[in-house]
């Protein structure tokens, strides 16, 4: 059984790799197979057994779906309200009644937006601003000169980088002249460096995934490693 799954994995991997040459039916078959299997597996195995059964059916119909002492709990019918809202989403499939799904989407969007605004401000924006307020001249606790210079330099980079990057996105003043133009240019440099770091990390991530597939093909499949 394991050999079959390894062979299937290898064939599908190679089929996907054929796209590197050009688009072809083999690639499209593997792609559609992946989408179909993922959707089926997600609903039947995961969503039903790990989500719907324990936290909806098990609580609304404990006698039939709950396990252990939860079988004796009274049914929690209030959960039928979110369940009904979930079912409304399926009306997206109907042209005539698709408007019904908007109630659920608006509810979900409202909750998500509210939570995101509050928590992003609390946990990202404010701590980042607080940590950007740093002393520009630091004396290391040991009193040594080199660590003091390095930390001071690091803080200068942080402060100049933060201010110039924020300024670059300030469009009420034209970015020209010795002051505004220079600050804006420094901001561009910092942004370019951060894009470079992001690009480097992305390349590293994609190469890592390729390594994972090659370890599978050369190791698990061909036994060459």
């Amino acid at each position, binding site marked *: 059984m394991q050999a079959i799954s390894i062979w299937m994995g290898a064939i599908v991997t190679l089929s996907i790799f054929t796209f*590197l*040459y050009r688009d072809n039916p083999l690639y499209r078959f593997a792609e559609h197979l992946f989408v179909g299997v993922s959707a089926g597996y*997600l609903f039947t195995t*995961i*969503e039903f*057994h*790990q*989500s719907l059964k*324990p*936290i909806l059916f*098990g*609580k609304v119909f404990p006698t039939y779906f*709950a*396990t*252990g*002492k*939860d079988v004796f709990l009274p049914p929690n019918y209030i959960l039928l309200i979110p369940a009904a809202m979930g079912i409304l989403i399926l009306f997206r499939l109907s042209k005539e009644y698709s408007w019904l799904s908007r109630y659920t989407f608006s509810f979900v969007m409202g*909750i998500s937006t509210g*939570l*995101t605004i509050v*928590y*992003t401000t*609390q*946990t*990202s924006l404010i*701590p*980042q601003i*607080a*940590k950007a307020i740093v002393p520009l001249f630091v004396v290391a606790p040991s009193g040594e000169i080199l660590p003091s210079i390095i930390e001071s330099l690091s803080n200068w980079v942080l402060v100049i980088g933060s201010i110039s990057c924020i300024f670059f996105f300030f469009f009420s003043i034209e970015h020209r002249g010795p002051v505004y133009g220079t600050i804006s240019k420094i901001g561009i440099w910092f942004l370019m460096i*951060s894009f470079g*770091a*992001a690009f480097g*990390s*992305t*390349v*590293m*991530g994609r*190469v*890592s*995934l*390729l*390594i*994972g*597939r*090659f*370890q599978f093909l*050369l190791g698990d499949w061909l036994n*060459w*490693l």
Partner: protein
Amino acid sequence: MDFLLKLKDLDRRIIFVFIALAVAIPMLLKMTFPVVPGKNVTSLFDFLDKLPIGTQTIMSFDYDPASMPELHPAAIALLAHMFRRQLKPICMANWPVGGEMAKGALASATEIFRNTPESFYQGKNKPAPASKDLVAGRDYVNLGYKPGGIPHIKGLISDFMKPYPIDMEGNSTGKMEIFNLPSGAKFTLKDAGVIVSFTAGTGGIEAYIALGSEHKCVMGASCTSVNIPKFYTFLQTKQLIGLVGGLPGAAECEAVIEQPGPATRGIAPQSIAHLVIMIFITIGNIAYLYEKSRKKKA
């Protein structure tokens, strides 16, 4: 010099062949490069070492097979380290296939733990576990996936067990020993010694950080390479005590637990592939500058 101009328009498929060779050849030659654990990884392991024996830890598997090469080795290493330190990992997932990922990682980590010789503990001057038999529900638990993200985690702060009446295998969690606290109180997210999320995208460690002011737990993360620049900011603000970044980070984890695995074996191919990419970028830039200077002269 026209050769340079030709290189500028090199067919991308030739580059693919070079990258494939750069990855495959070091693998076939079994090349290895030394891996030295960095500060961001060791700080996480050091914190785990300081936790009292028997402390529950939350391990959130927020990734799927697409990110396995980067995150799975780190998950295995951290779980193995926790078993060796007699901590009790509570595995959960905010990503649908996360439960399956946890299942695989637990199996591999259990194997590493069982094969750890007594001399390892003596060498580290740490107490050896009394037994090498790990029991689900007592030494670890895999609760599987639950939807919701931030609202779901917010609920766990007040009542951890409510969304988890059963574990991933369908066993009732009500009487599981792992959720017993010495005080006799009900287990909540706040009681976890540390929260570690293996994050491939959204809905991972950021969801826990968002609620950091409420659960007040120490947090660490393992993320894909793409996310490293984003998550470094959380290290700077000390919202994370440690960060395992991508495949190199996972290799560092394997070095800490002294168990080289797929991440360690992946470092040589990755370094060579990076070198090839750097060469292509340099050649591309030289060709671009040459073309520019030629146009100027013309």
